[in-house]
């Protein structure tokens, strides 16, 4: 499988999920948002979004409430560190057990 037919001659990556593989499996701790403490949720309007701004992998959405994409979140914990209201906690991944209906 060669890359000659690929259009570019340089290293070129586009924003989007998966350029480094499905990195969600790398997580040791998982960020969990407490919506009661989250500024945009409390105001009911777009605000703060410091978690969205700081996430190095772009896995947090700029929405009310912010959503975290666990397929790609590597669990670095920067969002929890930066959140001004401490609305995000990092929880041991082992606490989440797979069931037929999904994770709990």
């Amino acid at each position: 499988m060669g890359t000659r037919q690929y259009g570019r001659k340089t290293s070129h990556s586009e924003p989007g999920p998966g350029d480094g593989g499905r990195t969600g499996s790398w997580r040791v701790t998982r960020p969990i948002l407490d919506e009661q403490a989250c500024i945009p949720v409390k105001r009911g309007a777009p605000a703060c979004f410091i978690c969205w701004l700081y996430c190095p992998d772009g896995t947090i959405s700029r929405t009310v409430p912010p959503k975290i994409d666990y397929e790609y979140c590597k669990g670095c914990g920067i969002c929890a560190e930066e959140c001004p209201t401490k609305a995000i906690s990092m929880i041991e991944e082992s606490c989440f057990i797979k069931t037929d209906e999904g994770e709990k």
Partner: protein
Amino acid sequence: MHIIDSGNVAAALGVKLSRAQVIAAYPITPQTPLTEKLSEFIESGDMAAEYVPVESEHSALAVCIAAASTGARAFTATSANGLLYMHEQIHWAAGARLPLVMCVVNRGVGAPWTIWNDHQDSISQRDTGWMQLYVNDHQQIIDGVIKAFMLAEEVMIPIMVCYDGYLLSHTYMPFEVPSPDQVDAFLPPYKPAYALDPANPANLNTVTMPDVRLDTRGVTAHGYMEIRYLLQEDLLNAVDVMGSVEARFKERFGRGGDPFYETYRCEDARFIAVSLGSLSYHLREVIDRLRDEGIKVGIMSVHLYRPFPADAIAQGLADAEGVIVFEKALSYGYEGALCSDIKAALYPVNGSKKKRPFVHNYILGLGGREIKTAHLHEALLNSCTSKASAGRAPQWIGLKI
């Protein structure tokens, strides 16, 4: 229009006629008046470009890399230690496949400090993936800059246009300045396949894994080695592209026509001298004198040094009995770099006499040491008459040790 001016003005006019859009340069020693002239053109409104004064040569090239990444035609110039200070970004520009044009106004490098001419600065950058063009007079400077933009943009590889510091940069001689219409008809605007665009964001040249990878679209993308292979492949192919650019230039402007090298009295020559830059014109005087003395000798002036047009050079030298390489630079610890390249090009060759020519190497003019016609004559005469008696080490001309 014919004018008389300095080599630096010839270069600046070439850049202006090529409609470069971004100029970034460090203005202090070892810079030359070339970039001052460009800043004057821009300040007076004669040239529509952004001039970015920076705090170092490293930054100058970084600005050009950024500018070319957004799709702008960018230019910078430097010399000597300024070029060496760029070194990391020089590699970067080639790997990023940005068609920058840079004039290298050749000067010696420190230590000890020197401001005078030799070729050590650009020769030491020959392995960076840039193309290198060496020119011999003011006409070739202005024409070379214009051709360089075309060649660089067709193969997406940056290029240095190298001309001798002081000997050409500060010398006044006549040259023809083509009209803007002529140049516009020759050189189309720069349109890269991808330019940075907020609507289509991309990461360029991030950490690239040793192996190939799947990108976000699920398509296999290059690893580091594929990207570097393509640079080498395109550099080798650039030899033919240069031939085509030169042919188009000659058709439109009626000048030039020697994409790889220029020869003088080589047709029946038993011995051929080889060199780069203005020295090869100086050697013409010596060739004439030796011809008068009955020695069949000619001079080959190499224009395209990287990519090295090995086949064409081997063809041009194969029938000679001897090749004498005069160099203003040295691969310290061995011999002149051009000499090594020529020997390598000749290795597979069997000339009409079924024997490879001997190759002699002379080192001269380092740090601006005056090159006397009489010394050139003596050296060339020795090589033509004593044949292959010289040892492996290069011989030095004008050394007073």
